[in-house]
């Protein structure tokens, strides 16, 4: 008898414990969630913001696997937007238009509208850093015009526009900035930040307006937390050299003494050192760049196997890099006076005492900093052709 009671008791206890396994209160089924793939924040006409969410539609993915629809264009996402005082407010309003619970965990892209960014972003960044779901690794962009437009696009090559923007960022043609980086930049010594600037390539004639493609058009420059301007992709290359973030480059130049034609090299290995120095009370940054790569196109009649000509080619590339850097310094340091180059952090680290003295008037010191460059380009290989191709032998300049 007692034995039986024991068994019944144990089964009851087991059933009781099983109840706990489902995690009752926080149970969320995947088909109760609206997976946000990208979010866009715009300014509305009044004081508030307009938040737009690109939400993934799992059912569309299932029907697409039939294979009848060719390529892209099939809508995998839907976009919902709403106005509110801030993000949290707008989300709660979007929620009323969505049958599933908004879930930020997969949101890889945040696009800030130009207008909104000019007004200041700090207040809304707080939501992203405080809410437990958004990821610090999400990429941040600023869009020319309204940010919601980038979400509405149906890029032909990728599944949805958020995916496309993420991949653009990962290619590192422009800047690659995650939410973590952006928040650190905003709160850092230099009080300036930079985000990649998105623009939309208009659709070809005969295509629907949603067939446009987002691309990285340059860099948006923030001072404090407000957008103050943007620089072109060309200038951004200079910024990349200055901030040691350059990875892949294609440099096309016309050597000074060449009669006609351009040469192009693909430097793919860089050693960049950026050393802050204070010499006789003058603040300087020494930028030394050593880069090497292959010749990919030679439009001149020069023979790259000749060492003298090779060095002349290298010198031309060096000048080109130097020009880009000076362009960047001119715009960012002299004109905008925004320290997106991170000089403040560099000086703080190397000269903490001197930094402490100028900290409060960094805005005045920053534009006066001299940048000295020391660039070495090394063309390692000529590719598969030694001499210039398709030119009669006697026209090739060998000396």
């Amino acid at each position, binding site marked *: 008898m007692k034995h039986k009671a024991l068994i019944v008791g144990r089964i009851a206890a087991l059933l009781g414990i099983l109840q*706990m396994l489902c*995690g*009752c*209160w*926080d149970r969320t089924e995947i088909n109760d969630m609206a997976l946000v793939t990208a979010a866009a924040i715009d300014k509305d006409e009044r004081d508030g913001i307009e938040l737009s969410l690109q939400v993934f539609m799992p059912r569309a993915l299932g029907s697409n696997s039939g294979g009848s629809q060719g390529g892209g264009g099939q809508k995998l996402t839907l976009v919902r937007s709403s106005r509110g005082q801030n993000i949290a407010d707008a989300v709660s309003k979007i929620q009323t238009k969505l049958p599933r619970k908004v879930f930020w*965990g997969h949101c890889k892209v945040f696009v800030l509208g130009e207008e909104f960014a000019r007004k200041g972003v700090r207040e809304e960044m707080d939501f992203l*850093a405080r809410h*437990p779901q958004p*990821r*610090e*690794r999400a990429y941040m962009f600023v869009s020319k015009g309204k940010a919601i437009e980038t979400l509405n696009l149906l890029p032909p090559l990728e599944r949805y526009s958020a995916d496309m923007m993420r991949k653009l960022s*990962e290619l590192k043609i422009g800047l690659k900035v995650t939410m*973590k980086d952006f*928040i*650190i930049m905003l*709160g*850092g010594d230099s009080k300036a930040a930079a985000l990649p600037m998105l623009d939309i390539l208009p659709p070809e004639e005969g295509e629907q307006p949603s067939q446009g493609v987002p691309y990285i058009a340059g860099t948006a420059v923030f001072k404090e937390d407000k957008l103050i301007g943007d620089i072109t992709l060309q200038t951004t290359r200079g910024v990349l050299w200055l901030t040691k973030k350059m990875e892949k480059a294609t440099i096309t130049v016309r050597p000074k003494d060449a009669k006609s034609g351009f040469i192009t090299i693909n430097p793919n290995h860089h050693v960049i050192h950026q050393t802050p120095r204070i010499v006789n009370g003058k603040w300087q940054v020494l930028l030394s760049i050593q880069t090497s790569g292959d010749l990919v196109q030679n439009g001149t009649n020069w023979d790259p196997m000749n060492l003298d000509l090779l060095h002349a080619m290298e010198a031309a590339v060096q000048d080109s890099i130097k020009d880009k850097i000076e362009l960047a310094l001119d715009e960012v340091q002299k004109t905008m006076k925004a320290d997106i180059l991170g000089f403040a*952090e*560099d000086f*703080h*680290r*190397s000269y*903490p005492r001197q930094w402490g003295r100028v900290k409060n008037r960094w805005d005045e010191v920053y534009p006066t900093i001299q940048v000295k460059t020391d660039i070495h380009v090394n063309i390692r290989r000529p590719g598969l052709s030694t001499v210039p191709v398709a030119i009669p032998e006697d026209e090739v300049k060998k000396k």
Partner: protein
Amino acid sequence: MIEKGKISGMQMGFMMYPTVVSTAILMVPSVTEKYAHNDLWISTLLASLVGFISMYIAYQLHRLYPNQTVIQYSVHIIPRLAGKVLGLLFLFFYLHSTGAVVREYADFISDAFLPQTPMIFIASSLLLLSAFSVRYGVESVARSAFIFTIIFAFPVIFLLLLIPDLTPGNILPVMEHGILPSLRGAIVPQSWFSEFFMISFFLPFLSDIRKGRKWGLISVFAAMISLTTINLTILLLFGDRVSGMSYPVLNAFRYIRMGVFFENFEAIIMAIWILGNFVKVSVFYYSASLGLAQWLNLKDIKPVVLPLGILIIIFAYWSLPSFQDVTYYLTGTFAYYGPLMQTIIPACLLSIAFVRRKRPSSS
């Protein structure tokens, strides 16, 4: 004797490591960064000194009074009544601390993972589990600690995946404002390190005391290295932003990404982290229960375990309505209360005991 089990020195070391590290990794990075800024890794190194001292004191007291815990020998070192009062203070301290630990754990889980679940269920389910482990005595606590600590230490390896995202420059300038900020930053973590005094409750059950000292040292050292590594990684990853985060470790683990597709690690890592917390709670819970049983001269530890569980839950909530209150308690009160009970008072006991040993004993 109440406890008949025996544990090995290695098991004791494996018990103490998560006892210090499991909750420290949550709070220590942001608290130390607040005061020490980018010297936060020096703070944990300095703080570990208190760990070594507390452990040494517990060990020396154990050599003078083998087979006794702090509750038992305090009656022998100072007058009986005073010793009993001191014992009660210790009991109260460990009971209250267990409550605080449970609360920290529950706050974190409900903040980051289960916001809808009532906190009381998060707290009491962990406590119930620990209660069963504690009921079966020191051997069951030690064995579960041995297995769980191995798994618990594993996520530190995952931090290596963050290396491509680190900015080594964040460490500069070292000691910009001298050593003072690092010392201030060390005040809070040293209270965690003072918890190494708890080996006093386990030394009497060691099968080989010499190994106990060796493994005690190893576990203080391991805790120092782990906390410093974590502090440093977080500094190199997040720079100045650390002190603005509630749980920087969580943010760091969330940032991990392997390849292009393998991310969102934190669910696994936090599941593992719960194991560490289980060890921590059961070590505290065991110490409190054993202490109470010894203080009342009971014959067995079992009758007090479950009722104490209720008291621990009570202490986890008593006058702590919010996370901010818990943080204030840990930084403003426990930072001094912990080392007072676990380092300074034991040091006094040790010096009195030494003096009494030198003189021909009168008792």
